[in-house]
């Protein structure tokens, strides 16, 4: 039914664009006039974004810039003060199945008594539905997802006995299980070993080749332009967004990181090390 109404809408482009500017339904993530506040203090202010399909998008900005909140706002996890975020032209709750979320690794208790494959299978819970148990087919898919991130042999291991990198891979495998079109990842590269970092980059590229869109909160300015082909520079507002090479400029970084000198130096260093 929803698909039908969407089709009807798209046959009337004029009316549609009047009601919602810059809102083509094929766009994985469209954000308009979005403001989020905690205790009346704004965290995100008037965010305007259109993320193109199939891109690897890096979300970069200083601590407290609202990067995690931006992802949560797209997922209905925080209340919005104004505006909206649409997934493929619809509110999140109508397009849940097209989005996968990888939260920060520290957001869960890794001493929880479950093993790796249990956590990965959680990615299938929406498909499985209320009251039902995860079946054999879904468990096989979970195993495949674990193999895809290179830790199939750790499937039965309790999650507290995995290294940080392996735990991050479990989270990625869980996102793969969701079989989504848009992946929102909160600092997947934080505190992981080099092999895991490589594996994650590899996975991101594969997803992008299959036309999937990934929005990744990232901290390491030195690798931004090598990992991502689209950038969002965020500091409460969107400072700049667009193709990585054009957006990653000294001027934009200065605006994003403001007077934080040490960070600015880091940024300058990163700029020097890139081919531009």
């Amino acid at each position, binding site marked *: 039914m929803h698909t039908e109404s969407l089709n009807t809408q798209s046959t009337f482009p004029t009316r549609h664009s009047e009601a919602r500017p810059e809102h083509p339904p094929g766009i994985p993530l469209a954000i308009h006039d979005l403001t989020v506040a905690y205790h009346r203090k704004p965290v995100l202010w008037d965010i305007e974004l259109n993320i193109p399909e199939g891109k690897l998008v890096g979300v970069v900005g200083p601590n407290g810039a609202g990067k995690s909140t931006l992802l949560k706002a797209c997922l209905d*996890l925080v209340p919005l003060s104004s505006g909206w975020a649409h997934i493929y032209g619809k509110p999140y709750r109508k397009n849940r199945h097209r989005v996968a979320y990888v939260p920060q690794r520290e957001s869960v208790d890794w001493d*929880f*008594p479950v093993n790796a494959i249990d956590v990965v299978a*959680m990615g299938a819970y*929406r498909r499985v539905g209320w009251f039902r*148990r995860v079946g054999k087919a879904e468990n096989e898919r979970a195993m495949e997802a674990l193999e895809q991130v290179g830790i199939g042999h750790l499937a039965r291991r*309790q999650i*507290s006995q995995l*290294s940080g990198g392996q735990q991050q891979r479990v989270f990625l495998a869980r996102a793969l299980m969701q079989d989504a079109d848009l992946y929102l990842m909160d600092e997947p590269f934080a505190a992981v070993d080099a092999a895991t970092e490589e594996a994650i980059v590899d996975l991101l590229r594969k997803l992008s080749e299959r036309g999937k869109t990934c929005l990744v909160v990232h901290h390491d300015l030195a690798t931004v332009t090598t990992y991502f082909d689209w950038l969002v520079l965020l500091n409460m507002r969107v400072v700049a967004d667009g193709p990585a090479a054009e957006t990653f400029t000294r001027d934009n970084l200065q605006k994003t990181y403001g007077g934080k000198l040490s960070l600015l130096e880091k940024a300058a260093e990163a700029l020097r090390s890139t081919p531009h």
Partner: protein
Amino acid sequence: MNWTGFDTWIVVIGALCAAACALPGCFLVLRKMSMMGDAISHAVLPGLAIAFLVTGTRASVAMFLGAAVAGVLTALFTQWITRFGNVDRGAAMGIVFTTLFAIGLLLIRQAADHVDLDPGCVLYGAIELTPLDLVSLGGLPIPRAALVNGTVLLLNLGIIALLYKELKLSSFDPDLADTLGYPSQFLHYLLMTMVAVTTVAAFESVGSIIVIAMLIVPPATALLLTHDLLKMLLIAVGAAVLSALGGHLGALVVPGWFGFESTTTSGMIALAAGLVFTLAWLFSPKEGVLTRRFREKVGDPGSLPDTNTA
């Protein structure tokens, strides 16, 4: 020691009660909300008192409804005070449950003083007397406490069997639960309702303080012994039953060693639960204190793999 049918009933009631508590208790422990059990077990008192004042009986469904409402309100008020009062959850809980408990005590004192709902009983319970209060189940006379606690145990078992996956998900990663369309708030309040109802059932047998031991100690014991949620639930129930049996035996036997009469069973059950926990802490094959020391001495690296690779 003179074991009678009376003693058997006391153990059965204690076991049913402890097992019913251990099931939701596992999720409380895993959600790091153990003290929420404490808060709710106290805060249900005004719910009980009001239900009692309205209906005039103790054995009614109204009591459970009153308790469930009070339990959910505790969780709700705690959340509000945390959010709007800018205090941490522990402090908010302290404010809410003491206030509600005080209201409950006042209600009982003022309005229900002449009847059989006394504060002492609320605090410590009277499991030794429960086998005297009989009801008929299919023609068989069984203690009402056994029926009530048995029903709650079955109810908890049913809910957890039905919503095992949902409770596991929302306890481990509530944000993911929300994004997948399993509202974590709903599951949270469902759990709080289970705790409230279970607490009320356990109330008159073991009182509102010992019930906390039943909610928390067996699950904490189980967590020392396994890395699997399903096994944790089973072991917690096992530890609960063991504590009930050991507790009553202890109450009959131990005081005799010191030349006293038998002591209160509910207190002994909590003590036995603590003892079972200590044993698990010392000898757990997973990470027992003595087990580890033994391994070090023998030079066996154990089954634990190296976790510090990254």
